[in-house]
């Protein structure tokens, strides 16, 4: 199904309490800043589980959602970009799971790809195996990782077409393509929306069957720099 064009405020309203939400970006690069802003300022959905490489920075991006007390649990590879997230996890204010970054990315891809579990050597024999099944395969100790799905994915692309096909720019791709594939409802913001046919078929990174809502990106990194300072 092609994506529905809408506004960030409208799209965010579809997120219920208790939802599991994936949020793209590596730090703020490639993060869906417009959608995060709408989630923070235009929604009161709470008890949320967030899956994202980072949990924002103090008072910026997802860091604002954390301050609002609306995060129940966070799954990330790098909480340390936001000391307030580390503090919340350590104090028990939020539940958390720390995963190796590649395992995080692969588990999200697996969910989108209908893979029900995979064995990775990364993290085997360490505390980040999290008590998961370990098995030696061809002499290599491996951890059985489950797929990570979400109710909603918030992603950002540089280019979209009117159907919702997405193309990312440079290192702003990061977690966005995998997350777009792994959620029941994928909401994408795009910096530039081209006419249908504006993307070459081989240049589409995320085909529109993964995208449910398409909104215009209205914020860029410059707009949120120092927001919490």
């Amino acid at each position, binding site marked *: *199904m*092609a994506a529905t064009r809408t506004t960030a405020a409208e799209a965010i309203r579809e997120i219920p309490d208790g939802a599991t939400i994936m949020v793209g970006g590596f730090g703020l690069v490639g993060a869906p800043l417009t959608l995060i802003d709408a989630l923070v300022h235009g929604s009161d959905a709470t008890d949320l589980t967030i899956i994202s490489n980072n949990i924002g920075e103090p008072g910026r991006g997802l860091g604002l959602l954390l301050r609002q007390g609306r995060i129940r649990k966070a799954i990330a590879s790098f909480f340390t970009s936001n000391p307030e997230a580390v503090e919340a996890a350590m104090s028990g204010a939020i539940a958390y799971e720390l995963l190796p970054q590649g395992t995080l990315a692969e588990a999200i891809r697996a969910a989108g790809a*209908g893979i029900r579990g995979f064995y990775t050597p990364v993290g085997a024999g360490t505390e980040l195996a999290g008590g998961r099944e370990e098995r030696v395969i061809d002499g290599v100790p491996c951890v059985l990782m489950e797929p990570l799905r979400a109710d909603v994915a918030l992603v950002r692309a540089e280019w979209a*077409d*009117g159907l919702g096909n997405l193309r990312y720019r440079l290192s702003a791709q990061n977690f966005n393509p995998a997350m777009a*594939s792994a959620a029941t409802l994928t909401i994408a913001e795009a910096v530039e929306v081209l006419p249908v046919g504006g993307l070459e078929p081989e240049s*589409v990174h995320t*085909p*529109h*069957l993964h995208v449910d809502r398409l909104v215009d990106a209205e914020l860029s990194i410059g707009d949120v720099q120092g927001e919490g300072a």
Partner: protein
Amino acid sequence: MTDPRDVIARRAAAELRPGEVVNLGIGIPNRIPAFLAPGVDVVLHTENGLLGIGPRPAAGAEDPDLIDAGKQPVTLLPGAAAFDSAASFAMIRGGHVDAVVLGALQVSEAGDIANWQVPGGKALGVGGAMDLVVGARRVIVTMTATTPEGAPKLVPACTLPLTARAAVSCVVTEHAVFRIDGGGLALVELLDGAGEEQVAAETGARYRVELG
């Protein structure tokens, strides 16, 4: 008299909704685009790596790099995407294809399907059939009610090697439409003037009757 394959294709086309992402198998399903109602623009996916395929190209206008999973030349519509096999089957297995329409040798009353290996003899070709019936959200089977020898294809249990268990949601034959859910098989519609007795005679599976 209408070709039974067109009866089946026409009715199967009515199962599809506008905008759905659909994968069409070879044979009868390939006739479906001709029967889509105006405005019912489904988006065609082909497992070798295309989304948004259009009509067959005119003779001489074929692009050698542009084929469907049946290796037939196709065209692309504006907004089409091309991707590799791993990504394409990730879409299929991950539940991102709304419906697959494909043929079958047998379908059981539990929705099991056998469609890759013909009786007596190894076919040795499965292609994407298993992935599609497991992964697509709805599996619509288009098949004649019986084999050329007159044996029912809707059976209590498949005797041919399985493609997948409990995968089929709808079966369209030249005489009837059946739906399959947790409660079993239901006859929901008669086609092309067929009567209930005729359908009963050519159906091996048990089914309930829920004609609207």
